[in-house]
């Protein structure tokens, strides 16, 4: 035995070199070692659905809201590069490479820097980032538990609330978790729009959370977003994922928008060991208020109106990992719109047509029920089968089946709670 003699053992301890045996790393230093962490997510799917465009009556869709392509398609192939820049800053770049309708698009999802250990519980983030609003908003699509985003996120945020600006967070020095955050952003992204100063976005959020014993933990959050815009272009009630808006001009002018939300997450794992079995319950409720002058123009005909809308929605989802690698989940989501149109001016487009074409007419309450099962042989690979029944609010139902894989290559950063 190597160190059987304990007197020898004690003597050996005096020498600091005890630890540096031949087994230590070879000490080679190459410029490679300073390379940032690179993570690539591959995402592709097969989708079986009847509808080819997402129609949510009462919502002018924007951002990335839309249905996946029918048949085979690749989704968000995400490339993330991140590192501690020095002892003060962390930086991250996240791009999505999307191929649709014969074109490859590179979309900047996040590009930000963040302070490291600034002290007093403060963190400052700057650049383009997913807002701290809500729970799901900050989580990249590859880490979602379903193949698509909840309707309420699609309808109110166009997928995610993301913008360019600064964020300040304060973590209270308390035994329980309390985080307060504020953001000032350009306010030029959906659900806001172009504004002359490019700084009209404001977000506030608060999160608290803790444990129930060793097996359960929870987090509760409240968020508020508001912005003002000069112009917001919208594709109307019809929206094709990633496709150009129709030839008609559909815009909101001199608008104000605000969104409030609450979110709740509960996680359970026997004795805190999530590897074997775990359960997650997650719900969010959001309300959006917006006011603007609505204008719809098609060829030489147009219509104008004062628009005052309130839209809301929620989702509730539960995910259960019943054995290592295997999870099942169910989700219900629903949205509804309550839009008021006044001071209508008909310049060749009557009110019914205007409501239909602008996407501001509200009838019906779209909702969707989904179930999924996924298999993740390791933390780096996942196959998912999802079935959804979407009721679009016009009484039409669509059965959607999605088979998806998301795979992670390279370094894979920790997932936030």
């Amino acid at each position, binding site marked *: 035995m190597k160190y059987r003699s304990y007197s020898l053992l004690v003597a050996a301890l005096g020498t600091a070199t005890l630890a540096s045996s031949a087994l230590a790393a070879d000490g080679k230093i190459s410029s490679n070692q300073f390379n940032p962490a690179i993570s690539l997510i591959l995402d592709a799917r097969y989708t079986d659905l009847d509808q080819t465009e997402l129609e949510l009556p009462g919502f002018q869709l924007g951002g990335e809201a839309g249905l996946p392509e029918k048949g085979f398609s690749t989704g968000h192939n995400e490339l993330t590069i991140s590192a501690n820049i020095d002892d003060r800053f962390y930086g991250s770049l996240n791009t999505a490479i999307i191929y649709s309708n014969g074109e490859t698009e590179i979309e900047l999802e996040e590009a930000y820097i963040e302070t490291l250990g*600034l002290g007093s519980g403060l963190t400052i983030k700057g650049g383009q980032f997913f807002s701290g609003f809500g729970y799901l908003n900050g989580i990249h699509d590859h880490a979602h538990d379903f193949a698509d985003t909840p309707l309420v996120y699609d309808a109110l945020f166009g997928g995610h609330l993301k913008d360019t600006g600064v964020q300040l967070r304060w973590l209270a020095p*308390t035994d329980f978790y309390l985080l307060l955050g504020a953001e000032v952003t350009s306010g030029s992204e959906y659900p806001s729009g172009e504004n002359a100063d490019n700084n009209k976005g404001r977000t506030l959020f608060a999160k608290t959370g803790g444990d129930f014993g060793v097996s359960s933990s929870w987090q509760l959050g409240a968020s508020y977003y508001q912005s003002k815009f000069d112009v917001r272009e919208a594709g109307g009630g019809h929206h094709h994922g990633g496709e150009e808006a129709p030839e008609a001009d559909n815009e909101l002018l001199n608008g104000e928008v605000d969104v409030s939300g609450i979110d709740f997450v509960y996680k359970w794992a026997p*004795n*805190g060991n999530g*590897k074997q079995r775990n359960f997650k319950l997650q719900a969010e409720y959001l309300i959006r208020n917006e006011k603007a002058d609505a204008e719809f123009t098609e060829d030489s005909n147009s219509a104008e109106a004062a628009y005052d809308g309130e839209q809301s929605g929620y989702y509730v989802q539960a995910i259960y990992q019943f054995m290592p690698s295997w999870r099942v989940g169910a989700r219900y989501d629903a949205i509804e719109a309550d839009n008021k149109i006044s001071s209508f001016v008909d310049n060749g487009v009557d009110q019914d047509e205007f409501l239909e074409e602008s996407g501001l007419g509200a009838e019906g309450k779209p909702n969707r029920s989904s179930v999924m099962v996924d298999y993740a042989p390791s933390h780096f690979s996942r196959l998912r089968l999802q079935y959804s029944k979407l009721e679009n609010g016009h009484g039409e139902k669509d059965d959607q089946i999605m088979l998806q894989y998301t795979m992670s290559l390279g370094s894979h950063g920790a997932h936030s709670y």
Partner: protein
Amino acid sequence: MNRLPRKMSQLLLVLAFFVVALPASAKLNAFACEPEWAELVREIGGDKYRVFSATNAFQNPHFIEARPSLIAKVRRADLLVCSGAELEIGWLPLLLRQSANPNIQTDKPGYFMAAMQVSRLEIPQHLDRSHGDIHADGNPHVHLDPLRLISIAKKLSQRMAAIDPDNSAYYSLRFKLFRRQLNKQLNQLAPLIAQLEGQKVVVYHKSWSYLLDWLDMTAVADLEPVPGVAPSSSYLVKLLKQIRQQKPAFIMVAAYQDQKAAKWLAKKSGLPLVVLPYTIGGNDSSNNLVELFADTLEQMVQQGLN
């Protein structure tokens, strides 16, 4: 309309009260990722430290959530003691970033990664995920080699002295006491150590490499086909064949590990299954590091070799 701002300011006052009224204690706060390091902080830091352990003996430290309660704890830590070598890579980097705490960021005196203080076994020649969840810096499960543990304890006492120079004599004394106690215990265990030497065993995960290396024992099979991957039934059948040829003495698993597969293998092969505490609190008779070694060796001999 002006009700809301008033409520807000009341809320802020209450918050401010909480913040100011927190007991201004002289104790330093330590955040340990695993129970063995929490215990080592207690041994060396004595009454100068208040210690919090992020995990208990029945939790798998590879897979912990970076949950709100942990973020709040890291926020207030003066010292962070973890295994390092990527063991906590799935959650610790997030805790560090979200804590905004300057004391415990990488390369600050309050950032102490135990495994990085000593040489490590099983540093992979090349990194390939098809080999499972391998750690680039080598095996991080270092605490069950008493030699390395003493070496880490010494480094920790020096680190504590750097953070809190007024008490440096105290930390150095406590280190020496701990070393003496542990060596005394190991000397008493010498007959058991002799019995275990050269024995072959079946393990679960690379949790036991350092203990086996110290005891000059060999792991002839691992219940995990590759690190971090649970055994499948077809793999277990293969393992059973392998065991019949290699003739190991017993199967050893940690209290936190799933014992279903190990029980099946023990039944089929007729080998004794030894469930070891692995860390502090893993059973009733391992309440500190000295007891942990005594209990581990006693169980291996009494249940494994008889």
